[in-house]
């Protein structure tokens, strides 16, 4: 398992777990990032928010928050 922020550009993965406080978990669930969901990293540059694509949606995520999302199978 890796952190979402460790996936490189264009890597695909499946979300394995979402950690963090209830507010964050609720927020990230409601935007569609739930366990079992496929994500593609579109952009991952240092000091910038991550851009991921999931459920037909382009989502911008803060880097620290990405550390709380664990993914599986992402070819780095």
């Amino acid at each position: 398992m890796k952190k979402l922020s460790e996936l490189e550009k264009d890597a695909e993965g499946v979300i394995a777990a979402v950690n963090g406080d209830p507010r964050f978990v609720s927020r990230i669930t409601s935007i569609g990032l739930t366990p079992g969901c496929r994500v593609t990293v579109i952009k991952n540059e240092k000091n910038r928010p991550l851009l991921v694509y999931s459920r037909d949606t382009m989502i911008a995520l803060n880097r620290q928050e990405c550390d709380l999302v664990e993914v599986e199978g992402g070819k780095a």
Partner: protein
Amino acid sequence: MTDQNEKVVALLGQPNSGKSTLFNALTGMRQHVGNWPGKTVEKKEGHFSHNGTEYLAVDLPGTYSLSANSDEEMITRDYIASGKADVVCILADSSQLERSLYMLADYAGITVPCFLVLNMSDVAAAQGKTVNAKKLEKKLGIPVISFSAPDTKSYDSFYTVLERTVREKPVLGADELESRYEELETYGRIKEMIPDGVIPGYSKMWLATKAVEKDVPVTAKIRAALPEADKMAFDAAVSRTDKGVVLTGERKFAWIDGLLSDTAASKKTKVALGRFDRLITHRFWGKPVVILIILLGLIASFIPALPLMGVGQLIAKIPDPLNEAMLNIGCPAFLAAIVCDVLLRSLSFIVQMLGFVFGVTLVFGLLEEIGVMARISYVFDNTMAKLGLQGKSVMPFLISFGCTMGGAAGTRVIDNWGQKVLTIALAWAVPCGAAWAVIPMLSTVFFGAWVPVIIAVILLVMLLHMWLTAKVFGRSLVKREDQCGMIMELPPYHKPKWGALFRYVFGRTKDTFVRALKVVVIVAFAFWLLSYTSSGDITDSILYKAGHAVEPFTRIFGMGWQTFMAFIASSLGKEGALGVLSTIYTGTGTISVGSMVGGAVAENINELLTANVSKPEALALIFAMTFNMPCIVALAATYQETHSAKWTARIALYYTGIALVLAGIAYHVGMLIW
């Protein structure tokens, strides 16, 4: 609301679901914007009628779900539970159906009649996505329509479905979803314990799901309704589930997948950023591009603004001849002065700026609607988060270099009320166009070649001021939970709905005009009273006497009564300060509202100033004026945008105080130098 027959339709949808566009298209200029009682969340209501029935549309705050994590979500939930809405219109984005149906899944279990609008069907079609609304309708048990805001035919089916929902009162079918919840260990146990009627309109299924999610208010309500003996067992069941939101979330999406499996189709396309998105998300070019877009938007705002500015300037030409004419026909001088000096000058002043408000609302409303504003928010999120703000706040700041009133109008695209008020409060620190016209000129008169240094210091002080103001007001305006890191979608671009946009812009401009006129006339009148003398000698006015009386106090801040008058005048309008100094030092005429808002300046003003004002005092005045309240129209616009007299007054007093402190510092620094 007074009409008993009026049907209430509440609009529910995630941000970017096109909710505001639909609301504007339905209600146009018949809108009322205020705050939810006791909450720092904007409340938008509007009226429309169709086939002889009057409707009240309530634009519920844009939220991603119906959990209890923010005021917005609580308001939305409580409003639906209040029973005030006859029907709820749930919006989803057809181009991102799977994700945006989450709101529908979270609604399941609520028994208030509803219908589903699959918005942005045009965007979805362009991406090769189709959805069978009829089939979906059968599965859900509620009316479902495909909808596209720019397409006028869409509205016919919207009204038809609205009428059908009002008539037939369909309730969203939730059995299928519930059977998925039943897989969860504690769901059944919790549901069994829930007594009837804990929250009207919310079924046991909905309440049980929220209890599994450890939703604090719902859990407390259920607990309160339980007999003492059951409370322990309930608490135990609730605490047994870990990360309930994730568990129910997975099931909600599984339910959505099941719904869409045979009703929606899409071509598998490789995802990639468009050319513009690649540019705007570029680590180096992103920010310059955003700033360029905003500056171009600012220039574009002037195009619709120019005609109104012309009208305002024409109005400004009326007072002098009219005053004379009124005096000639024997009209009392004070009456002529009120009409000409107070009413007409105020009107002229507002009309000139109103064009800019119109332009800014239109141009930046358009950028919001087509999806560019979300990108701006993304690019500046990191920077603005340091001030507790959204990335979008960068836009009002830049507009405020032109006009603070325009900046205030630009905050409309910020969806969080507290962050909106804080953005306006910080935007006041940005020296506006009028300051840039007056300050370099004053600086040149006194300091010649040092002007660039003074301007650099002003810009530096501006940044410090904004940082300080964010610290001072941030804590009470922006809750900690709103400062959490960015989780936002970059919505697909879509075509604007011009008619709705224009009606909205006209409506908001009209509101601003009415409110601003009230505030400006009151302030101008008060000022006129203070400066009025029957003798025409300035030393007879209350203003002079008061100014003289407080001079020992204003001296602390480096200002004599004359420059203090100019400072006071600059809070009405920066250009006015020069007019006031000119009047005082030439000793001719009275200070009037006319001279406040851009009156004539004596030709030898430069000599007059250098002869009467010392360098440290001039420096004090420069800082006092620059960081004073921008002008009365900005004050009025702040009130209009925040709907809060309390916050408007608080910001105004704070700025006056800080301006004096800065003046004092400038003065004492000046004393050391000269």
